[in-house]
């Protein structure tokens, strides 16, 4: 499974746990504005990324640029795991 697919699966799991239907979510939709995840769910997603990909994320890296969409998240993770 690709990194993007793994992230999407987690996002969908968290969205469904909140009672939301994530099927229309694209890789470029801004997650905080999509209404699918609340702040606590996004926080859970960040903790999952740290655990799943094995690195710590600085508080300063938690920006829309790095984690706003599935695509940006994929790019950030790829860059971090290349280090």
């Amino acid at each position, binding site marked *: 499974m690709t990194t993007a697919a793994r992230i999407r699966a987690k996002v969908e799991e968290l969205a469904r746990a909140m009672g939301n239907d994530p099927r229309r979510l694209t890789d470029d939709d801004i997650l905080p504005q999509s209404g699918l995840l609340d702040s606590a769910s996004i*926080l*859970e997603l*960040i903790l999952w990324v740290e655990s799943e990909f094995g690195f710590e994320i600085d*508080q300063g890296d*938690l*920006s829309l*640029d790095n984690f*706003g969409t599935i695509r940006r998240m994929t790019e950030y993770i790829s860059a971090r795991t290349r280090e």
Partner: protein
Amino acid sequence: MPSPVKHMPIAIPTPRVNNNDDYVRFSQIHREPGSQVRKGDPIAELETDKATVTVEADNDGYVLGFVPPLGEMVAVGSVLAWLGSSADEAMPEAGPEVASSGTASGEPSLKAALLLARYGLKPSDVPATGERLTAQDVLAHVEHRQIRLPSAERGATGTAESPPDITPGRSVPLSVVERGMLKTVTWHRESAVAGYVEIEYLTADWDSHAAAFQKEHQLLMSPLLALMAYRLVQLARESPRVNSTIVGSARHEYESINLGFTVQSGTRLSLVSVRDAGRMNVRTFVDTLGDLMRQGMKGKLSSENTSGITLTFSSMARWQVVRHVPVLPPYSSLIVAHTHARDGVAALGASYDHRVLTGGEVAALLRALGRPDQGEQDA
């Protein structure tokens, strides 16, 4: 090979975990007696109702043994363990008294003052073993003199008595979090004179303010709750009475505002403490709280970040809860209850200690909290 220091054996004292706890539970052994350790290696775990800390070896050497039995409550400052220069060195039989890190002001500690008030004693009634009267001194005195709590308080802890004719079952020890909750609920019921008030407010102003802040600072997560909690800090800064509690027959006004914020992860409910929040600007506060929430969800909070709370903000909006009456954390006068909005209207409630605040004061505070004060956000 480690190079043990000279003049062994050396004592490892029991550290203070929280300002208000003179006793801590010896909960775990990391390195068994006879183990070789290096400076900084974890050797044991201590816990209170609010926090867990790891005790580290402060020298290279060998763990000779632990003085208190595992699971016991241990006085802060007493010897927890001994380090020696070889594994077979004898552990001293009697541990020396180790000075605690508390300040020697001559005044009772906060916990001692609370105990004095509960038992109806004056500081001069109780002999102090050190320069400062501690809770340990008060407890030793009441035990020696067989002084009993006033009848209204007896049996209030929920731990001392078994109910009559209880259906047979097994006794399950409480976890650290459960013990903390028991302490909180008991304090709320027995010490605070708790009241609750609630107002309704329109959420549009806060929603647009939080959205603008999020856009301006390019934040990943909505800062709404953090901004509302910061507004509460601002209001407490303007009205120090909000940030106080009753100790004995006086109101104890805290020097700093340590903002408690509830964090839920799975079934675990934590209360994180943003220390000295009154001296932070809004962005620092939002970032600090965000970081603490992450640590809380990971279960990696330090004692510093879970103790000393003087004022609390709690939200159950995530669970679509439209009203909740929160329990007051010990030694605080107010906890705000934020709720889920329906059709742009939500309830903002607060449990408060009626010994400190009136319902009118709390209602006024909630009305102020119901709208952002943008002019002061960066103060």
